[in-house]
């Protein structure tokens, strides 16, 4: 995984709350056996019309949304299924951070393991972001700080270990495997 320290980008806003992983990537696209190329199926049922053409009404299809790396969404983003295809699809499309007031547990874990930043902010900051699509936002992982173009900055919660792994491009599996001697000792000591 590439080290990730900072994301500076215009935002794209999908204001709905409770955007579930079936919306992020519908189940019929989960028959893949790789992680690649899922970006074209991101938000497929919102992004494309029945004939397969782009839905001009959907925000990601607008000209000013192109190249945006930060997605701002309503509360409880990523609820539902555990499919890691959801962060894979967002990353493959080009999104590097999701900002909401609340992000579902499994999605958050999956995002962190792939270098997609799940960022929760207070209601006032979220409301400002929802009201200002296209705002130029600066996310600095080293200080865990989101800075709005108004100059207002706010910190976001992130576990120390996850931040360390993201900033150094550390693979968590390598860390876990460094504990194998302790794992063997645990197994040997268990009496049930």
């Amino acid at each position, binding site marked *: 995984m590439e080290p990730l320290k900072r994301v500076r980008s215009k935002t794209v806003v999908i204001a709905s709350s409770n955007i579930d992983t079936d919306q992020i990537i519908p*189940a019929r696209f989960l028959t893949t056996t790789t992680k690649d190329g899922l970006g074209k199926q991101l938000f497929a049922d919102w992004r494309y019309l029945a004939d397969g053409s782009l839905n001009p009404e959907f925000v990601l299809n607008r000209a000013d949304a192109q190249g945006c790396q930060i997605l701002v969404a309503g509360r409880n983003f990523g609820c539902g*299924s555990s499919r890691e295809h959801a962060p894979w699809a967002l990353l493959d499309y080009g999104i590097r951070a999701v900002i909401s007031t609340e992000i579902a*547990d499994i999605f958050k874990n999956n995002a962190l393991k792939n270098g997609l930043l799940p960022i929760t902010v207070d209601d006032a900051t979220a409301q400002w972001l929802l009201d200002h699509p296209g705002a130029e936002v600066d996310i600095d992982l080293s200080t865990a700080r989101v800075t709005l173009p108004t100059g207002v900055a706010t910190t976001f919660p992130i576990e120390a270990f996850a931040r360390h792994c993201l900033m150094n491009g550390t693979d968590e599996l390598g860390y876990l495997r460094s504990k194998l001697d302790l794992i063997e000792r645990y197994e040997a000591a268990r009496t049930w």
Partner: protein
Amino acid sequence: MSARTLFDKVWTAHEVVPETADAPAVLYIDLHLIHEVTSPQAFSVLKSLGLPVRRPDRTLATMDHSTPTRSEQVFGNVPIKVDAAAQQVRQLERNAAEFGVELFGMRDARRGIVHVISPELGCTQPGMTIVCGDSHTSTHGAFGALAFGIGTTEVGHVFATQCLLQAKPKTFAVNVEGKLQPGVTAKDLILSIIGRIGVSGGTGHVFEYRGSTIRGLSMDERMTICNMSIEAGARAGMIAPDETTFEYLKNKPRAPKGAVWDAAVARWRTLVSDPGAAFDASIDIDASTLEPMITFGTNPGMVVPITATIPQASADATAGPASAGAPADAFYDKALGYMGFHGGDAMLGKRVDVVFIGSCTNGRLEDLQAAARILKGRKVAAGVKLLIVPGSQQIKRDAETLGLAQIFKDAGADWRESGCSMCLGMNGDTVAAGQYSISTSNRNFEGRQGVGARTLLVSPLTAAASAVQGKVADPRELL
């Protein structure tokens, strides 16, 4: 030692390394369930690193999500319609053989939905940590196990180390007292709980379902409850094991036997929250006042009693705290628009095109028995399609032996092989755009059962009653 919760006891017993300020806990996993959809990329990681599955003896594979349910496709020579699904099934067969993982494959008599077969084989046991690349892994919490869904990267972590890096969640007591009225089921209870807590109210928490109502439920009913914990945002839901649990597990093929069984039961009896144990959050539910429940929107928290009308706006009570308040929210109106419903509409009498009875939520034998109570001697209404899909091949055989399958066929239902089927549209069983599906599954998200499909979540009783009447119906009138 201070009073401890059930969750805390199970968590602590599996800490290889406790959580610190700098790093999450290294948590040992007793049982790793895998299926064809969320495992292939994790096997690829093992191959690229040249690593084995460290504990194949703690790993169990089956196929359920993308498999067809038509007998001629499962046992005959009719190919799987979706090419990519066929490839996924073959990939799991190859991976299981290469890594020495036991697989209940397509034609195995023990195959079924992963969350149905593990309990029925006795693999799921109290006090275990159980994970699977599937959010409904919470089902196994019905046995007093700590069971939760993980992503594919974590599937790879468990393959390679039998452990996960986990931050310790908070605890949430769901206290349920009072007797469920006739026609009101475990499904109605959990839908009602989700309506109260909201679809994100459980985020960061593990539920423990407690109280006399829970104690009075069968294992099939407890699994229905724990299954939908994730729909309130919780990672897991647990129920302390008791005589009901032990009676269910005794003599199951893979449950302990003889002296090992006796020792296991003695240990399992300690898996209860101590009197006075503190929870981070709690809610009290009176089960005696509940009615059959039905969803009207596009998440499981948008739910009302079946005799009620659709709330005018999310602030109207039942949509719960998750939908109310700031920031500004376009979700509620969009959801009703998708469903083709309006605030103030009555739910009774709503149109029905398809009825689905099955899934890891309601595809067990007691669920099929409930449906049969309504369907016996009756016919599915003209213009309605009723699909009944058992949760496992074992349940299919039991339902055939008990005569349930004949009742279903006589009623005009389509009786299939086991699998996830119409719960999620990725195996050929789908609901057409614009159609209304009365479903015993767990998610009414947009497009979940097919592009443009409109899902109303209910109990097996309500599903069967609606199939017979050809519209959303109150099962209490047919019991």
